Structures are given as C-alpha cells and as structure tokens.
C-alpha cells in the first residue's frame, strides 16, 4: 500500500504524503480542542457574577447633596462630599484594619486605632498606611449620581456637577 502511495507521490511531485497531511490535521484537531478546553477552564475560574451588593449603585440626584455636604452612606460605606460644583465619593473603610471611619468637616478619624485623614482622605496621623481611596462618580442618564466602587480613581479628581 505504501509503495503505491510513494509512487503516486513521485508522479505528482507532491513533497508531503497524504499520511502526513492526515496526521497534521488530527493533531491540529486534538491540540486545538485541548487548548480550547484549557482556556475555557481558566475563564471559569473567575466568576462572572458574585453575590453581594452591586459595585455600581445610584445615590440620588445632585440636588439632594447641597454644597458643603459631607455625609457617609452607611450601607454602601462611602462618604459623599460636595464643595461648590465639585463632588467626590470617598471610601470610609480605614486602610489600616478596615474599621469604618467617622466623617467630620475637618476630615476623617478612625475610632479603632486613631488613624486620621484630612478632608481629601490623605493620611495625617496614626497607623493607616494609605490614603482613603476615591471612587468614580458619574451622572446617570436618569439624573441620578452613580458611584462605581469597582473603579478607584486618583485622589483629588473631582466630579463637576
């Protein structure tokens, strides 16, 4: 059988034998499906949705936060701050050990180990290693402000109403 094939090969001048083409196709199929299944298994490791509050949530219209507001939203663990036209959403979770910091006009203070932060969340004292993170604030089309806790932004990047 192989003699006959070789003869055909020689006749047609084809450098690759039919057997090789088939072997190549077979291995492509098998390796291909192996790769696809590895990739899909890897993708599965990260869940697409987890239980818990959504990271993106609405907090109300800008009118509900008149200039000078500094209030903490307990459920969402975010402080909403408005100075004039500028607004920001700052985390109230202490960067030291995760206590909820108190919000005052002069800044933030942690009741657990005495960390202190200034009005923009920068560390001014105590054991906290990092400033309080700022979250992205945006205006949704229905006129409500939305905070996205999934997106940290650099401190001092205000949202203009």
């Amino acid at each position, binding site marked *: 059988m192989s003699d006959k094939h070789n003869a055909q090969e020689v006749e047609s001048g084809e450098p690759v034998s039919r057997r090789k083409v*088939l072997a190549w196709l077979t291995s492509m*199929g098998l390796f291909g*499906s192996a790769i696809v*299944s590895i990739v*899909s298994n890897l993708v599965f490791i990260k869940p697409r949705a987890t239980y818990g509050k*959504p990271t993106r949530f609405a907090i109300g219209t800008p009118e509900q936060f008149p200039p000078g507001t500094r209030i903490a939203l307990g459920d969402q663990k975010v402080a909403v701050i408005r100075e004039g036209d500028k607004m920001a959403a700052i985390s109230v979770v202490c960067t030291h050990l995760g206590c909820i910091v108190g919000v005052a006009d002069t800044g933030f203070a942690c009741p657990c180990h005495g960390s202190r932060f200034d009005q923009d969340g920068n560390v001014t004292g105590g054991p906290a290693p990092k400033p309080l993170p700022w979250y992205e604030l*945006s205006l*949704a089309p229905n006129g409500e402000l939305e905070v996205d806790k999934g*997106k940290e932004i650099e401190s001092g990047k205000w949202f203009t109403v």
Partner: protein
Amino acid sequence: MKMRLSLAIASLAILVVHGFVFYQQFFHKWENYQQSYFDQAKTLAKNDAEKETFAGRSPKIEQIMVTQFGSERVDRCTTCHIASDDPRFLNSPHPYKTHPYSEALGDKQVDGRWERRHKFSDMGCTVCHDGQGRGLTEFYAHGEDEFWNDPLMGYVTQENWRADFKDKLKGKEFMEANCAQCHTEKNFKATPMVNKGRELFQSKNCYGCHRIEGISNGTLGPDLSDVGKKWKIDYLHESIVDPRANSATSFMPKFNLTNEEVKALTIFLKSRRGFNYAETTLDRYRATLKKPSSNSAMVQPTEGNQPTTLNTDTSANYGGQLFTERACAACHKLGELDGGIAPDLSFEGLMKDEQWLVAHFKNPRSLVPDSNMPSFGFPDTEFKALSAYLLTQNKVPPTGNGQEIYQNLCLRCHGEKGDGHGMIATYLDPYPRDFTNAGFMSSKTDERLTASIKNGVPGTSMPSWAKVLNEQQIKDVLTYINQNFTKETRTDIKQRDVPEQNPVAMSPESVTRGESIYLQRCTGCHGRKADGKGPNSLDILPRPRNLLNAEFVTRTNDRRLFESILYGVQGTAMPPWIDYGLSKDDVGDLVNYIRNLNKNKQNLVAANAYVSSH
C-alpha cells in the same frame, strides 16, 4: 489508511464541538445588547465627561439584590434591559426600551424629569413582574421554562399551557396580583381587578366552600390562602372554568362567569400568596401575640360572613336581605334569579318546614349526605331568618296537564329528554332518575313511583311534592313520563317471595356475618366504607347507593332492601344475588350490617321524622 482519515475527521469534529461549546458559554447576547447600549449612549451624550463614563464601561452582569421581599432576590434583568432607567430610550425597541413612567404607579414629574415611586435599585424587577431573576437568557429569565413557577406575569405563557385559553392569560392587568402582595388594602384603587375578584369571591359564593385567611372560612373546598404561591395562572384559570379538568371527582360547580369575571377571579387568586410583603417580621410577630389561636401572617379582619355586631333579627324580611347579601342565588334559583347550579327554591315553603331548613342550613350533609352545599358558618339567628324567608316562598306554581307540570317542575333536574341529565344534575348526588331507563321504570309499581313523587326520596334532592301537586296531577305527570320517556307499556310486575320483616334478629354475630359477606361481595361497587364510591362506581350509572345515607337507609323498609339485594334492581348494575348463592339468611345478615352502619345516626333521623309524615 481509512483509519487515519476517520481519526482526522473525528478529531476535527471534536474541535468543532469544543469551539461550539466555548462560543455558547462565553459569548452572550446580553454582551451585544450592552455594547450596543454603550455605543448608542455615547452618541447621545451631551458632553465629553458623559461620553467618557460610557466609554469606560464594558459589558458585565448587572444585578440587583433585594432582601426585603421574602427570600433574597437576585434580579439580573437589567443585564439585558440595561436602558430600563435611561429616559432617552422611551421609544426604543426591546430590550433597550425604558421602563414606562406612569402616574398610576406613583411616578412623579419634577422639573420636567420623571421620578420613580418604586426605584429599581430598591425593589428589583421580579417582585412585580415575576420571571426568573437569575436567568441570563430570554427563555429562562422570562420563565418560559415550564418548570419555572412564576413566568413573566401577563406577558409570557408557557408552552404546555392549554391552547384554548392561552390568549386569555395575557395582559398587564395580571400584574395587579403582584401589586397586592404589598398593597393589601381592601379597595386599593390601583388594583381594580383584584378588588373585583375579591367582590366576586363573595358574590359568587366562593366563600361558602373555600377558606382564605382573613376573608372566609369555608371547609368544603381546598384552602385558597396561598393558592397563588402554589399554582400558575393557567391552573387557576382552568380550575375556575373547568373544575373537573384536573380532578375528575371534583364537585365544584361550573359557575356562569363572563371572561372578564374569570380573569378578575384568577388575578385575585394569584394575589393570595399567604404572605404580606408590606409587613415586617416584627408586625407578623405582634399579630400572633394579639391572636394566639392562629399563626396568621395577615392582619386583616374577617370579612363577609362574620358580622361584628350580631343581628338578632329573624324575620323573613331580614332573611330576604341575607339571601341577596350571602349570594344564595349564585347557585340556587328563586323567581327571576338563577345560578343554574342548585335546586329551585321558588316554592320551598311548600316542601320543607322550619326544622328541616334550619337543620339543613347548619349541616346540609346531615340530611342529604352527598350534597355539595357548603355548611355556612353563619350564626343561628341568620339561619332562622333565611328559613323564615324560604317559608314565605309558598305560592303554588302554575300547573296544568302532565307535560306542563313536567316542564315547570321536573325539568331542572330530570332534563328535557327525561334522561336525568337536567341543568343541575351533575351537582346532585344521587343523580336524578333516568326515566328512559325502561328496565328500571317498568319494574316499579305505580304505587312506588307515586310515593316517590308525593313523599320525595329521603336523603336525596328529590323533595316531597304533596303540597304542590294533587293525586290527579301526580298521575298525569307519571303518565306523561311513561308515554314520552319510558315508552314501554307497563306489564304486571312479578310478585316475589320477599319477607316483610327481616327474619334474622339483629345481633353482633349477625352484623359480623353481614360484614364478611359485604366485604366479599359488595365492596367493588359500594366501596369498603359503604359510601357508594367503590372502584367500579365511576363506570356505573345510576351510581351505586351510598349505604351510609342514614336518611335513606333508615326510611327504607326491610322488604325493599331484601328485594333489591335478592332480586337485584332492574335497569341498574345491581345483580340478583339469589343467582350468586346468597340465601335469605345471608341477606338478613347484610341488612343488619347496613342498618348497624347507620345506627348512630338514627337519632338524627328520628329528629327529622316529620319529613316522612308529609
């Protein structure tokens, strides 16, 4: 060579299958919807900052977690319906379309911008719409899957629902059933269909048989307090329009309801889910403290059948008022009113007396054991008033020749063709006699037939006509029945050797012997409990006699019982047992056994003895 080729083909096929699965699992329609929404929103954006927020977003599963309505809800509806709260998409096609704003829902317009009364972030979606909140494909999310109990209310009908009323279960008014989960007030104006259904529940006398916590106390039918939680609207609808579709032995009547009324009742029943979302667990706990006897979740006063102040009026006038208020005409006929389900009460005063009526009101089954009239829980004074009212219905109806009498008085039960299939026959047990059954009719003497008309048949719905018809009229109607329905010339009835009195004395031994014969010979039709509902009974018409019918058994003499057992009942499935080897002594034992079954009810029958004296 062939082996290599097939191996190559097989491995490529595996690759294709893997690729297909990969595509199915990791590329979703909702990603396209979201991407398309972001693109559209970017072009609609008024300034760069807005554009930037949309540019920064990539498709991901959006979900709303709601814990305040019963168990935790995870609603991912906004994953596809991502623009549902974006007012710029009001006129877009689904799934981009903005959820409509409506003043009926309590939405308000402030400075030209709508504000929602029910915020999606607080309420989620499924609490109003139903459907499967976790679903990410249309099929599952909308509850089209037949195993999902709550398909999208009023919009989605499942594949296996009955085709003949599928289209009647559509419409957004069905969603009112979900509004009523929180808005449980009796006349909440945004849920007109629920309110209408609640009124119908009273006015169609559903309350008589069914219990709904806080509304009614019926015991004859299933408790409907949480029927909306257990069943889908197709089942509720079917149970109203065709009660025997699911349970062949159901004796719930088919009420005369318009499509609109059925819809209102379906919506009302769907709203009965056994809980009230407006209450907190604390409210519910307080409610149980107030009423220690019931662990109710509904803090509503019982409506309808339990008046707060007891009216001691027992006059016929008040009875007439009650007759209307309590919706008796939902089943019965009285004058012009006709429910088409239960007997005519237009001349009840000529057939029954007060004692019978009151006893029957208190427990219909003490006098007619297989009656499907519910035992209403009204106070005794109301029963007296109703009885007084019925006793005033004593005008002799127009009579005439045999045919006219039959048409006026007999037709409702015995039917136009005299075959026992009258308008209300299906709701009577035992069934009305079939006059076309010549075998039965010819084997009974004129005296016996006359007596049945004159005195009625105890324990059944056949009343005594003695005060309505005179001897001649009874004769006329019998002649009419014989000529038009039985159509057989009556021959002399063979006299049989049957004892007048049971020759076997009543004794425990005799009863035991009778029981063992009964269990061997009779249970197939008459049933182990002797209630006439044996395994063969559904195939037999007329149905086997209910031997626990004390009214009937006690008033039937030994002679008739002997004759029926020994020589059978012609025209029915009761065979002549003398041919199957039963002796007179055996029959005597059987008669003792049957009488013994009804022994404890004899006092009751004695109390009603006046009936037979009529």
